[in-house]
């Protein structure tokens, strides 16, 4: 009987079975950022511990970083303190840091792959739930809390329980105007926001096989929105081509040896899965969320659900509609938006910006909409500028910002105001997520955000291409 990638990576990284019955797993790469690490570094200090493997640890700053004016000290005193704490901790403990002036700075899940830190077959942990993104490379990558950040810093290990594996095959071909974001939103809608608890999601099928690494990252990124802490794609030729020449990737003959090993850790053809699901590409359409969790979505051609009955789901739908200011039964297309945000670790890579720019080119942002683009990293920003994408966005009336998490969450100056409605390429439409306690988020692909920006309302992007 063959093994899945998850089983192979798990076995290779197992140190021992702990007295608790959990498995002690070696962490191959620990990514650190400013928000979830200060208390962990303090815990090390208190006990006189060092960081166990500086060679397996890398830090950046993204969540609190202002995307417009990055002059230090930041206007926000708390953000400044947090940034200073990260700098101090990295200096004191010797952790490499891509700080604000570093041209490698960016959202932690964008820069890991970009720098070649993220590699197939690794175990990767970070104090951030979207660490699942790195699974696109065939790594077993997952988010952890601050106490676990402390554990990894001190011991390079975690105490974990085994996971089951659900294979999700996306088969056939994707219709025009349908993106990776629509695929993952559909998966979450079908399997539920809690459907993946206890599972790793293995994404497979011919559509995933043909996807670029950027698209695979978008899918793996939102595994956690489906409750799955881990999501991955088996490494293949496309993965290897992406890896080639990255600063931290092996080079020369070592690269060839690496390829052989990377191939060997992919799931075997006769691997056994705990569950198997098929999603047919032909059935997919552009998707928009109408509610307050990422599973509450509908096709852009569809209608917002009606809250029938008062119990359980009926109540949840009624609450969500009230919060969103939507009426059951109305078409989602045509919903007026106030803000258009293109960014976040889900959709802020070069290919995302290209797709959005294709829609924006030669058009103008609707007068009542505030639209802005936040590249995922300093290097995405540079690359986009080399192609002139910034010019296209600016000419249309978008703001062009510097890399950071921005309006994905309310920790930096980019926030919704009052009950504004935001067409967003990010990953969470939770109440208050974008910084205003009454702010409203509609999740969609970057191309759909671009379409909403220029028309001023939710629009089927297929009408504009």
């Amino acid at each position, binding site marked *: 009987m063959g093994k899945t990638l998850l089983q192979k990576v798990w076995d290779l990284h197992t*140190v021992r079975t702990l007295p608790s019955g959990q498995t002690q797993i070696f962490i191959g790469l620990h990514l650190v950022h400013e928000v979830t690490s200060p208390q962990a570094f303090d815990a090390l200090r208190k006990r006189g511990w060092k960081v166990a493997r500086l060679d397996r640890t890398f830090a950046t700053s993204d969540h609190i970083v202002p995307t417009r004016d990055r002059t230090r000290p930041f206007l926000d005193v708390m953000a400044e303190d947090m940034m200073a704490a990260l700098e101090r901790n990295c200096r004191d403990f010797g952790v490499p840091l891509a700080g604000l002036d570093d041209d490698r700075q960016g959202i932690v899940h964008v820069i890991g792959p970009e720098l070649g830190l993220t590699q197939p077959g690794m175990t990767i942990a970070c104090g951030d739930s979207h660490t699942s993104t790195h699974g696109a490379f065939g790594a077993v990558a997952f988010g952890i809390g601050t106490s676990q950040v402390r554990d990894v810093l001190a011991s390079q290990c975690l105490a974990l329980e085994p996971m089951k594996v659900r294979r999700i095959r996306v088969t056939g071909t994707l219709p025009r105007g349908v993106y990776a974001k629509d695929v993952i939103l559909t998966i979450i809608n079908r399997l539920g926001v809690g459907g993946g608890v206890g599972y790793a999601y293995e994404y497979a099928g011919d559509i995933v096989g043909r996807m670029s690494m950027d698209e695979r990252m978008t899918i793996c990124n939102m595994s956690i929105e489906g409750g799955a802490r881990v999501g991955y794609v088996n490494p293949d030729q496309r993965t290897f081509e992406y890896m080639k020449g990255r600063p931290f990737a092996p080079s020369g003959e070592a690269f060839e040896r690496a390829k052989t090993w990377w191939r060997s850790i992919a799931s075997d053809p006769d691997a056994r899965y705990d569950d198997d699901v098929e999603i047919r590409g032909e059935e997919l359409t552009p998707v928009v969320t109408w509610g307050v969790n990422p599973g509450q979505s509908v096709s852009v051609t569809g209608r917002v659900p009606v809250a029938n009955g008062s119990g359980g789901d009926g109540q949840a739908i009624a609450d969500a509609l009230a919060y969103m200011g939507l009426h059951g039964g109305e078409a989602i297309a045509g919903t007026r938006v106030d803000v258009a945000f293109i960014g976040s670790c889900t959709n802020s890579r070069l290919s995302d910006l290209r797709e959005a720019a294709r829609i924006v080119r030669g058009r103008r942002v609707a007068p009542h909409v505030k639209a802005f683009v936040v590249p995922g990293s300093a290097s995405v920003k540079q690359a986009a500028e080399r192609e002139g994408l910034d010019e296209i966005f600016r000419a249309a009336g978008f703001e062009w910002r510097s890399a950071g998490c921005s309006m994905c969450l309310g920790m930096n100056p980019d926030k919704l105001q009052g009950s504004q409605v935001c067409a967003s390429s990010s990953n969470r439409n*939770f109440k208050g997520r974008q910084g205003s306690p009454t702010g409203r988020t509609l999740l969609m692909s970057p191309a759909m955000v671009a379409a909403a920006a220029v028309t001023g309302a939710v629009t089927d992007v297929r009408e504009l291409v």
Partner: protein
Amino acid sequence: MKMTRIEGTALPMRGDDIDTDRIMPARYLRAITFEGLEGHLFEDERAGSAAGARTGAVHPFDNPAYRGASILLVNRNFGSGSSREHAPQALQRAGIRAIVGESFAEIFFGNSLMIGLPCVTAAPDEVRELMERVEERPDVHLRVDFEAGTCEMNGFRCAIRLPGHARDALLTGAWDTTGMLLERYEEVDTVGARLPYVAGF
């Protein structure tokens, strides 16, 4: 600290998929300690906030009947979303000692256990029964017994479940994992050395 049972009054927080952004809004993560977080629990939906004022209903955490509660009752997929440990930290600092629910998001469950805040599950209809009884009589004590695997209040008793390792951690007081992970560090280095990407292929 060993923990075999928690006894106290309870606070029912109804709703599925209550995410950690709701429990602890992101703006309060801009601090380098966990101190004082309890003052911001569910802030955006509680009295005094714009959103709270709009809904008008009394939030369970504002309801004087539940003041001093040490057991939180929740429904399905509690603690979904962001991995912020600030959420369980704030609940614990607000006096919550155990959470009984239909199900929990994985990262939230692990984070809570790491800080000694056990999350246990019970059957959905039993959780509903507990909630109704507490809403009727908020002053009645509940007893969550990790050793016996039960949750009891006068006249009602149901089974609770928690993974074996979590139960062991509570009963032996060994949920602070770092020491355990550091115990045999040579073995960690051995694993590191056999991984091709660590060795440089």
